[in-house]
């Protein structure tokens, strides 16, 4: 069994074992077992980076076995510079979330832990799949654990949120399924991604395919105007669910653009680049403004996620190496930062059971250690140099300015909004005098929460100070992608 298979199936196997034998009577054993599973699953992804050859754009750690002969589908896995970091990121965030949910979840602990472990395996599968159908199966299967996570452990309006999440994303991906079958037919019976990348297609076919993929990926990213499910879902999802959703699941959509939309329909991608850039800018600017007026912390961070993901899609569709690399770096950094933001909110929510900004004030007085972390993550969220948030945004803005000054200008203005809503929230929640009895009664974070915060803080800081390991691995792959996209596939 190859490393990638191990990275996918190890957490799933642990999850299945938990489902089979875990009971609430021995919840602690369940937690420790889940932790062992998460650590093991994270450790097996490390050799992927250690042995990665950054000098080639070819797929590495490739595994290929025939899976469904009838449709010529193969179990075909591999990573390149674009997908490598997401495998590690997924396993890392999963580990963090499992530690963060330790005492918070008291009911059906085994199912909760299993859902996250299985979800992380499936998401790694999405990033590794080199076969269209295999990709789709992983992509869709992630909906099931997330649906259950939101619905079982979510907030008061969890059922509405769970349905909205599932049906909204299913609608998009079903159109993608039709596109996949169409490509299968056109390519003479192959689901192989490399074959599809090389397949010549007419302009109208490319446009239809582009929009079918757009339906799936734009909903997932989410891009304006199909982002409306995200705030509702984030508000109701449990803390861990929000963290994984923001940190990894949104990236599945953005990753899909890089693997499917751009290389399969390059001409349509160029033709509709203006449209995509416009949507991205609206997400960056308008949704940034929307974030400013939120009363609910989770909603605010959710809208800020939409704005940050706008940078990612903006970077992709200016077709420069700076933009695409910047978008990918932004995806990784947003994975760390958004997870940290949601987990910080979770720390407060566990104590006060309110997400309203107005219920807080002066938290720094009672929780100084936690407030320090929160400030650091807030700074990362507004893109302060030296934090992870800065690198990606800077690269995208630089790329955008080169492409067109005004687009770059509009994108850069978003940094101001980002700083405004994040810092204003920070001020209202953490600074000032102690606002009420709840805040007065707060106790600072314990060792476990400190560990969670510290793990994420180290990652955010490291990526901000020394982003080279992240950008180095992707350079060749991004250059190869751009070279491929620049060549017309019209026949």
């Amino acid at each position, binding site marked *: 069994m190859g490393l990638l298979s191990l990275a996918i199936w190890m957490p799933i196997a642990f999850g299945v074992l938990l489902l089979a034998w875990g009971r609430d009577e021995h919840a602690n054993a369940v937690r420790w077992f889940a932790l062992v599973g998460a650590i093991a699953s994270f450790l097996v992804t490390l050799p992927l980076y250690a042995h990665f050859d950054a000098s080639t754009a070819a797929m590495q750690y490739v595994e290929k076995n025939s899976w469904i002969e009838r449709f010529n589908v193969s179990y075909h896995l591999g990573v390149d510079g674009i997908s490598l970091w997401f495998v590690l990121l997924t396993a890392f965030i999963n580990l963090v979330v499992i530690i963060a949910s330790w005492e918070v979840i008291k009911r059906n602990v085994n199912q909760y832990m299993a859902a996250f472990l299985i979800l992380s395996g499936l998401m790694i599968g999405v990033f590794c799949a080199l076969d269209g159908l295999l990709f789709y199966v992983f992509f869709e299967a992630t909906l099931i654990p997330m649906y259950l996570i939101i619905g079982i452990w979510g907030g008061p309006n969890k059922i509405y949120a769970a349905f909205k999440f599932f*049906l909204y994303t299913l609608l998009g991906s079903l159109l993608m399924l*039709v596109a996949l*079958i169409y490509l299968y037919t056109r390519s003479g019976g192959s689901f192989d991604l490399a074959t599809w990348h090389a397949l010549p297609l007419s302009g109208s076919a490319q446009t239809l395919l582009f929009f079918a993929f757009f339906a799936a990926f734009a909903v997932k990213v989410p891009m304006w105007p199909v982002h409306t499910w995200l705030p509702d879902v984030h508000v109701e999802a449990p803390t861990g669910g929000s963290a994984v959703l923001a940190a990894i699941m949104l990236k599945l959509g953005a990753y899909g653009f890089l693997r499917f939309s751009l290389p399969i329909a390059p001409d349509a991608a160029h033709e509709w680049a203006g449209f995509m850039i416009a949507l991205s800018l609206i997400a960056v600017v308008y949704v940034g403004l929307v974030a400013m007026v939120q009363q609910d912390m989770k909603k605010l961070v959710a809208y800020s996620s939409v704005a940050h993901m706008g940078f990612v899609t903006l970077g992709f569709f200016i077709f420069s190496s700076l933009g695409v690399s910047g978008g990918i770096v932004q995806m990784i950094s947003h994975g760390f930062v958004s997870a940290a933001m949601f987990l910080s909110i979770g720390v407060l929510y566990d104590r006060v059971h309110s997400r309203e900004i107005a219920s807080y004030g002066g938290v720094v007085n009672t929780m100084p250690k936690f407030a320090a972390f929160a400030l650091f993550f807030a700074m990362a969220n507004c893109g302060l140099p030296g934090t992870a948030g800065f690198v990606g945004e800077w690269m995208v803005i630089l790329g955008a300015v080169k492409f067109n000054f005004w687009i770059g200008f509009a994108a850069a203005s978003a940094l101001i909004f980002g700083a405004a809503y994040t810092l204003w929230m920070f001020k209202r929640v953490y600074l000032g005098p102690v606002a009420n009895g709840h805040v007065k009664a707060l106790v600072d974070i314990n060792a476990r929460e400190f560990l969670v915060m510290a793990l994420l803080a180290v990652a955010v800081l490291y990526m901000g100070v020394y982003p080279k390991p992240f950008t180095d691995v992707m350079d060749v792959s991004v250059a190869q992608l751009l070279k491929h996209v620049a060549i017309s596939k019209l026949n």
Partner: protein
Amino acid sequence: MIDKLSWITAYPEVVLLVMACVIAIIDLGVKTPLRTATYALTMLTLAVVAWMQADLALGAQTTYGFENMVVSDAMGNWLKCFATIAVMVTMVYGRPYAAPRDMLRGGEFFTLSIFSLLGMFVMISGNNFLVIYMGLELLTLSCYGMVALRRDHVVATEAAMKYFVLGAMASGFLLYGMSMMYGATGSLDVNAVFKAIASGKVIHQVLVFGLVFIVAGLAFKLGAVPFHMWIPDVYQGAPTAVTLMVGGAPKLAAFAITMRLLVEGMLPLALDWQQMLMVLAVGSLLIGNLAAIAQTNVKRMLAFSTISQIGFVLLGVMSGVVNGNALSFAANAYSSAMFYIITYVLTTLASFGVIMILSREGFESEEIADFAGLNARSPLYAGVMAVCLLSLAGIPPMVGFYAKLAVLQSLIASGESLYLGLAIFAVAMSLIGAFYYLRLIKVMYFDEPITASGVVAPLDVRVVLCANGALVLILGILPSGLMALCGSAIRQMLGT
């Protein structure tokens, strides 16, 4: 004179018939309330028959017997093998359910099941219009009896009455169509009818006239809109064990006669029946999915879900011929339909199994509200049900996804824009379908349980139900074998 080959073609049927009579007689001496002896003997018989069918199917020979009256081919033998297993599983689930409801006072539940299975066998292997009709009647007559097995139960009796009246009418349709065909072509033999139609010397109007009645009869049996009215009432009214007996294995036989009559017998008329099937499929997908949303009764909801699933099967059957060209598309399309119906039956077995397991003496667990908080009461059965519902909704990695994928692929492969439109319509309908399947999952997982009591079930039921649910998932991860099986069976039938 009956030659030796004829007996070889039909020996599982002979075994079944003989054993049905033997079991009926032996049962007279059985006194235990669960009828364990009858049950054991029935299961043994069916296991042997299933093995015989699998053995025949693996031989992959096509033989004709009794003057071309019956055929034994890979498609038929596999379908018979799966139908036998489906009946066995139904009995495992059904026995503990039937006993407290006074349905095991006599051995009819077992003997009628065997006779209905024999009817399915005859339908599947019939190569002659009258033989097919005879098998169909044997099946439906046994089913009428089983639906009415709780004779002092008002709802069940009403369901039996409805089923009988509508079923008899459908049989009438079918028989009328067959006699038209006989009048036009001068033969009841499926292959001879094919040759007569292909020769082009037969008056087209008469053929189409007969065809309309045959398709209407088939649509009745399959439960396609607008001939679906009996399905919800019978599913809901019949005791759940019988619902499964009516709604499970017979679907395989109904698929087989659709293939025999429309494809083997009347492929030259494909342009005509394709349009009819298209209307039936679109109507079934639309009405089935929309009406299912409004249901509060799980059995009724699953009945409408069946109607919509049949719509998918019909799309698969329909897409076999494109612009009169059957060569390049037929095998692909019919094997997707076959894969679809087999996996559908597999999923239906497990979902009704869970409904039965939740029912207790004097309590039918068939309202959606009865499933509230099932996950808290029994994570295992909630898991099995969830897997089935996700499979019916077509969410990967459950097997139902590949069934839908195969049908959609055969539609899109045709390259016709009309078929592409149908594929998109089917996809839109499965999105609507996902809603009501998810709603039941929501009730099981997100709602608070109405009772804290656990769910108890006998060991055999537990084991079979787990295996059944696991198979829905395992076939979803490794669907290749079953797909290849359907492909080779259909290719052999088509002679390509």
